[in-house]
């Protein structure tokens, strides 16, 4: 079974530039998550999709971050414009259905390490 795919693996940009990350979840997984992991901290949920609808985006800085999941499969996360504090690893994860309450495991991709200079 193929895992969660993410690209690019690394990205370095100047502040105020824009950047986009791509995620392809495990086939058949209806729920997709984007997490931000700052160095030395645990992952923090940015947005959760159920198929192509947003379930939770309460912690997404909507003035600069956007995400979409067209056709309920692949997803992209965009930052525009980037700030220094956006330097982090951006992790995509998927699960068969919403993990909360169901006890489903999250399957994570390798992440994209973003450095904002």
């Amino acid at each position, binding site marked *: 079974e193929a895992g969660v795919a993410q690209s690019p693996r690394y990205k370095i940009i100047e502040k105020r530039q824009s950047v986009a990350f791509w995620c392809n979840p495990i086939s058949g997984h209806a729920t997709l998550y984007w997490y931000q992991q700052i160095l030395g901290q*645990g992952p923090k949920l940015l947005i959760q999709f159920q198929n192509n609808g947003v*379930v*939770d985006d309460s912690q997404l800085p909507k003035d600069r971050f956007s995400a979409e999941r067209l056709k309920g499969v692949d997803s992209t996360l965009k930052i525009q414009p980037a700030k220094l504090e956006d330097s982090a690893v951006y992790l995509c*994860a998927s699960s068969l259905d919403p993990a*909360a*309450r169901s*006890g489903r*495991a*999250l399957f994570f991709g390798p*992440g994209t390490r973003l450095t904002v200079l």
Partner: protein
Amino acid sequence: SQQGEEDPQALSIQEGENATMNCSYKTSINNLQWYRQNSGRGLVHLILIRSNEREKHSGRLRVTLDTSKKSSSLLITASRAADTASYFCATDPTTGNQFYFGTGTSLTVIP
């Protein structure tokens, strides 16, 4: 914040020894999961324990849960160099619909 806290932040042991790490959280939960993260990689699910369970085993892993103290522990027995990683607990609160990851314990197993 509903984020859990792991203790200790860092742990260094010799190969073959046991490693214990703890997770404390603040709200009532449905279940708690433990994940491992190798350097530069994504997280990997290790084990889940539900709120009505007190102990669970999986291979060399033993997880306990004390809901009265709002804490969980992860024991790795007979550690190996390959166990070197960061370990995170993730809580599923009874209110809301998302997991909250803790701050992590960085484990180093010295060959």
